[in-house]
């Protein structure tokens, strides 16, 4: 596909999603309380969107990922929350 074809096909969808992200940040910022590790990871992920670097999706996923390499001692829950807690430390 040409750049123009990609833009024609996906621009409105991407525009919708970026407005949703902006509205989410507005909502969080006007609420009382502090950021948690997920929001910190979210802001780090947003930092991967600017500039001309390629593989932005991969970089965003890495910003949310546990970078350690050793297994944990025990699984205390079954679910994932979307961001690595230790990133906030």
């Amino acid at each position, binding site marked *: *596909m040409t750049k123009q*074809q990609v833009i024609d*096909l*996906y621009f409105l*969808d991407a525009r919708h999603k970026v407005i949703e992200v902006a509205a989410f940040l507005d909502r969080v910022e006007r609420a009382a309380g502090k950021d948690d590790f997920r929001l910190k990871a979210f802001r780090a992920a947003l930092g991967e969107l600017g500039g001309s670097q390629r*593989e932005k*999706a*991969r970089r965003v*996923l*890495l910003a*949310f*990922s*546990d*970078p*350690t*390499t050793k*297994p*944990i*001692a*025990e*699984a*205390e*829950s*079954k*679910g*994932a*929350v*979307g*961001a*690595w807690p230790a990133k906030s430390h």
Partner: protein
Amino acid sequence: MRFIEPHAHMVSRVTDDYERMAVAGCEAVCEPAFWAGFDRSSAAGFFDYFCQLTGHEPKRAAKFGLKHFCWLCINPKEAEDVKLAEEVIALIPQFLDRTNVLGIGEIGLNKNSRNELKVLEMHVDLAARYNQLILVHTPHLEDKLKGTRLILDVLKGDKRIRPGRVIIDHVEEHTVAMVLDAGCWAGMTLYPETKCSPARAIDILENYGQERIWLNSACDWGVSDPLAVPKTAVEMKKRGHNSAMIDKVIYQNPRKFLGQCPKFKIG
């Protein structure tokens, strides 16, 4: 359009889904053993589940002209209890000769714990001893990167395992390269909120090629869509991919991998 759904948890779906899939061109559905959404209280619960996967579910699919195949294991979400896992793994060999069993899966990791890793190694050993194909689940969200690395280490550490007989599922942009580089097959799961969207899955196909890769819906009891594969095929058409290319990704590729099991016969 014809397609194979290589990863779907049909015991969690209504009969209407079988009909919709058949109408959309599905020729076969493959069902890895999965977590029920709650922990089973004993190995006997798994015995009943394996009977359901190998006996009841193929009959339900056949009513709509669909072939049903399955994979057996204890899912990583229940692998923290090693004693239970040992009991369940001991049950599996008696089911391996059933006509619709393709191999061991979906094994893997969930939270990347030591016990999960131990149970993964037990499953890999079982697959090696019985010369079975392997279907691997990679962890969710923040745990996927680390889990995929740990899984690949286990597979590489067992010299009996041929990577071309292993499919590692739920890859995304940050894990697909390491899976393909290891010589394994890669599965992309199309979910409405997590894993891959159709657009991102097609991006990955365009960036990494169409060899040793498939698409699946992994539809289950959660938010998921049993028609995600044919819907992605429509998206591929919109992006200018021709029918031969679409057929390769949604039909020929899964047929090639699954055909390594002589019991996988369709069409």
